[in-house]
C-alpha cells in the first residue's frame, strides 16, 4: 500500500550550527529541501529573535524564504512560561492568554499544527479549544519520554478531545518514547565524565533487559558505590522508556505530526537506539497522514568533544525514512 507519510525537519535539529552562527534558518530550509524534506517545523522563540513581536513584514519574509526553497511550514512549537514571575505561577487566565497569543501567530504564519508542551494542563487546553477552532490550529500535546501514549496524563487530553468532539486537540508523539536500546552517544559522554566502563555496561545491559529503572539506579548508586557520572547515567533511565510501537496505530486519529527525535545515526543510516524500524510499519499500516519531522538532539551529547554536523545526521535519518517507508509499503497489506 502507498504511504501518505511526508518528510520534514524541525529547525531544532540545527540548533548547534544556528547557536554558533554557522547556519541561518534559511540555510536549514535550503538543506532540508535538498534532501526532499520540504516540511519545516519552527520554534518561533528560537528562530524569530523579536518574538513575541512579529510584524506582517517579517511573516512575509518567512513566506518568501519558504517559496524560494519550495518548502512549507508544518508545525509551530509553542512554549508556556508558567514561571514567568518569581513570586507566583501564571494564573489560568494568563496561561490561556499566552496560548492564545501563540495560536494567533501560528495562524498568521499559515501553520495548522501546534506542538503543545506536555506539562500544559489538559483543563487549560480545554479552555483553549474554542480559540484553536477559531484559528484552525490542531493543538498536539507532545508525548515525550518519560511519558508514553497510554500514560494517564496523556489519556486526560484524549478524554477532553473525545468529550468535546473536537478535531483541534490531540497529541503529537515524540519518537524518543521508542528507545529500544540505550544510545551509544549517552554512554560515551558519561564515560568521558568518569563513568567506569563496567558500570556503564551494567546500565546498558539493564536497559536492554527493560529492568525497571529504580532497581538499576539503586544498584549503581548504593550497591556499586557509583560516582557522580555513573549515578547520572543510571538516572537517565528514568527518561528512557521503550513504549510499545504496536500501540501507535490506535492513537493515529489524534495526531497529525510527529517529532522524529534522534540522538545519532550510524554511517550506514540506521538509528542504534530508537525503534523506527518497528514504528514506521505501524504508521504505514494505519494509513497515517502527516509529517515525520526530524528532531536531532544529539548535539548536546557530543559538543564537548567534537564538532557537530547536524546536516549529515539529518541526511542519514532521511535515508532511513525512505528505506523504511518503502519496505513497509511493500510489506504491509492494504487494510
Amino acid at each position, binding site marked *: 500500500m502507498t504511504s501518505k507519510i511526508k518528510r520534514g525537519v524541525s529547525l*531544532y535539529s540545527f*540548533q548547534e550550527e*544556528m*547557536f*554558533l*552562527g554557522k547556519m541561518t534558518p534559511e540555510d536549514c530550509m535550503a538543506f532540508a529541501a535538498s534532501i526532499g524534506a520540504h516540511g519545516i517545523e519552527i*520554534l518561533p*522563540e*528560537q*528562530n524569530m*529573535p*523579536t*518574538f513575541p513581536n512579529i510584524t506582517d513584514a517579517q511573516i512575509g519574509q518567512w513566506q518568501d524564504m519558504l517559496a524560494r526553497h519550495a518548502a512549507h511550514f508544518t508545525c509551530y512549537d509553542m*512554549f*508556556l*512560561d*508558567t*514561571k*514567568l*514571575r*518569581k513570586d507566583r505561577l501564571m494564573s489560568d487566565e494568563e496561561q490561556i492568554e499566552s496560548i492564545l497569543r501563540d495560536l494567533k501567530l501560528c495562524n498568521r504564519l499559515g501553520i495548522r499544527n501546534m506542538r503543545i*508542551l*506536555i*506539562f500544559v494542563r489538559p483543563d487549560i487546553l480545554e479552555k483553549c479549544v474554542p480559540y484553536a477552532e477559531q484559528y484552525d490550529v490542531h493543538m498536539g500535546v507532545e508525548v515525550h519520554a518519560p511519558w508514553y501514549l497510554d500514560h494517564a496524563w496523556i489519556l486526560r487530553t484524549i478524554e477532553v478531545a473525545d468529550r468535546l468532539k473536537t478535531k483541534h486537540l490531540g497529541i503529537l508523539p515524540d519518537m524518543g518514547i521508542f528507545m529500544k536500546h540505550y544510545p551509544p552517544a549517552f554512554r560515551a559522554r558519561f564515560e568521558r565524565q568518569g563513568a567506569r566502563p563496567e558500570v556503564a555496561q551494567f546500565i546498558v545491559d539493564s536497559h536492554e533487559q527493560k529492568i525497571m529503572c529504580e532497581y538499576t539506579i539503586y544498584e549503581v548508586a548504593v550497591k556499586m558505590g557509583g560516582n557522580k557520572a555513573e549515578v547520572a547515567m543510571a538516572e537517565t533511565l528514568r527518561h528512557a522508556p521503550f513504549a510499545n510501537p504496536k500501540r501507535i496505530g490506535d492513537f493515529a486519529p489524534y495526531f497529525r505530526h510527529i517529532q522524529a527525535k534522534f540522538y545519532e545515526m550510524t554511517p550506514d543510516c540506521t538509528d542504534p537506539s530508537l525503534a523506527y524500524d518497528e514504528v514506521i510499519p505501524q504508521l504505514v499500516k494505519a494509513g497515517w497522514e502527516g509529517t515525520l519531522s526530524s528532531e536531532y538532539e544529539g548535539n*548536546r551529547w557530543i*559538543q*564537548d568533544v567534537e564538532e557537530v554536523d547536524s546536516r549529515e545526521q539529518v541526511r542519514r535519518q532521511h535515508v532511513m525514512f525512505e528505506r523504511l517507508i518503502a519496505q513497509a509499503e511493500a510489506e504491509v497489506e492494504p487494510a
Partner: protein
Amino acid sequence: MFDKFLIQPASLRNTGPADAPTGFAFEAKLGYYRGLGLSMIEELNVSIDGESLAREAVTFDEGPGPITLDAMETAYDRRWAFGAPATISVAHPGGFPEGEHRLTFQQKLRVSYLPFPSFNTDDKVLSL
C-alpha cells in the same frame, strides 16, 4: 547546554578609564535552545579563580541598556534571544586581574517545564 560556548573569549575587556579600570565586561550567550525572558534568568554568577563576585556587581545588557540582576526579576518585556551575545559587565576595581586567570560564568534559569532550575556553566582561562 552549550556550556563551553557561553563566554565569547575575544570579547573580554576592561571598563572605565584605561589607567584606572573600574571593572571588566565580556559577551556571552544564553545556554538554551530558545530565547528567554529576562525575568526567568535568576542568576548570572561571575567568578575569578573560583572566587564568586557579588551579585550586585553584575549588570546585563542584551541591547536596550544595562540592567541589574535584581531589576531583571521584573523585566517582563525584555528577552535574551537564542544565540545572541549579550554584554555582562562586572564592577571590579582595577579591572580583570593581570595575567592568566580562570573566568567562570554560570547561568541559573527558571525553565517552566522543568521541575528544577537549569544551570549552565562556562569556564575559561583568559588574559587581557
